[in-house]
């Protein structure tokens, strides 16, 4: 029964993603663009799949807790995005904004690679952090920062990935699945390290090469209403008797 539901969900999701992808890019809505950004963005999709599989292998209460904490993290990241992004990257450090996806990959990878006995305690925290970083990633990549539709579309696909991954891994006690999960966790860590390194190398070079503005040649005087009374040739209201 669970497998049938999972297969049905996968089928519906795949058909939906293909239908959206077949739309010309100019004709897609923000929600559709957000959905594709997650479905076809391996860097965002893989941590979600890992979280779903790990939650599916956990007990029911732990799986539900992971889902709830992911939603809480997503909400927190969506609401407090400005404060969080400011904390992440200051002036001249915009390259750090590209670390959001690598951090999510690293977090989930660590949560999966550790032994199973510790994973049940680490997984809820990983779900919270990944949810928050996912929300930040969606806001950063949204073509319209004032609209919530892009993150909403992405959140819908994220929920689909989590649900289908959890459904397929539920009630599977094969030891090889636990081993495969740890191997997958190492992949996520490797991806996170490589993406983070690429972001630091490429983007920090762009930040450091940004031209700095020259200092102003005329001092600004608020008492004289700025430059209004400044005349190089001495003419003007303030000049003469």
């Amino acid at each position, binding site marked *: 029964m669970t497998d049938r539901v999972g297969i049905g969900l996968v089928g519906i999701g795949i058909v939906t993603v293909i239908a959206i992808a077949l739309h010309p890019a100019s004709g897609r809505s923000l929600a559709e663009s957000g959905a594709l950004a997650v479905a076809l*963005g*391996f*860097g965002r999709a*893989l941590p979600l799949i890992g979280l779903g599989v790990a939650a599916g292998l956990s007990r029911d209460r732990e799986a539900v807790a992971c889902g709830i904490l992911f939603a809480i993290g997503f909400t927190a990241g969506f609401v407090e995005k400005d404060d969080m992004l400011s904390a992440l990257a200051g002036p001249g450090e915009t390259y750090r904004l590209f670390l959001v*996806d690598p951090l999510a990959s690293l977090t989930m990878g660590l949560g999966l*690679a550790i032994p199973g006995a510790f994973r049940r305690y680490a997984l809820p925290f990983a779900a919270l952090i990944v949810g928050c970083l996912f929300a930040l990633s969606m806001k950063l990549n949204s073509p319209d920062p004032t609209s919530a539709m892009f993150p909403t579309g992405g959140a819908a696909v994220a929920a689909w990935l989590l649900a289908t991954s959890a459904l397929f891994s539920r009630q599977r006690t094969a030891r090889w699945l636990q*081993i*495969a999960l*740890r*191997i*997958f*966790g*190492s*992949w996520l*860590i*490797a*991806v996170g*390290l*490589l*993406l983070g*390194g*690429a972001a630091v*190398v*490429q983007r920090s070079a762009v930040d450091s090469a940004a031209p700095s503005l020259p200092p102003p040649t005329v001092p600004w005087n608020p008492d004289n209403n700025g430059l209004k009374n400044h005349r190089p040739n001495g003419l003007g209201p303030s000049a003469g008797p």
Partner: protein
Amino acid sequence: MNDSLPRLAPGWPSLTARSAAPVFLGAFLTVILTPGSAFAHITQGSMGGFGSGFEHPLTGPDHFLAMFAVGIWGAQMGGRSVWTLPVTFPLIMAMGGLAGMLGLQLPGIEVGIALSIVALGGAILFAWHPAEIIALLLIAVFAVCHGYAHGVELPRAADPADYAVGFVIATGLIHLLGIGVGLALGKPYGGRLARALGGAITLGGLYYLFAA
């Protein structure tokens, strides 16, 4: 344990890791003292996204053979090594990739890649089962070489994110393929098929060291 290994063929001497060690040591010294003898690849030119990253380990026979051998060797050793080797390799490979991206100059990468094929193939051929820490250290050294080769190309990729995901996934899948093949070939004929495959991999490595 090594002395009780079955012979590869009737009439052949019993090959053990201990007896083959001087041969490999001599080959190793010959290689590192011979300049420009290795031709394992670091590709040039612009790269794409996920597809390019995914196909890089697959279409590079040197990368493929090494990753494949890691999986077979882990399966041959059995126990924890079935998964500790495929878990360790991508992690250390990422470190090597970072070194490549940062432009650090690591000497002998191409030699290292070719040697990895020879060493891993030889380990399978002689059914060498060292202590886990030794196997992991060996894997780590080779992972740095392979990761560095990938990392050098990553910043030039049109989409570095998808490129990195592509080659990490491809690497992992090749490991899994090697584990599957290693487990399948480990039992028939006392594991001789797996060891013969290791010999073929070793020959491939020697080709990259000297003749490519």
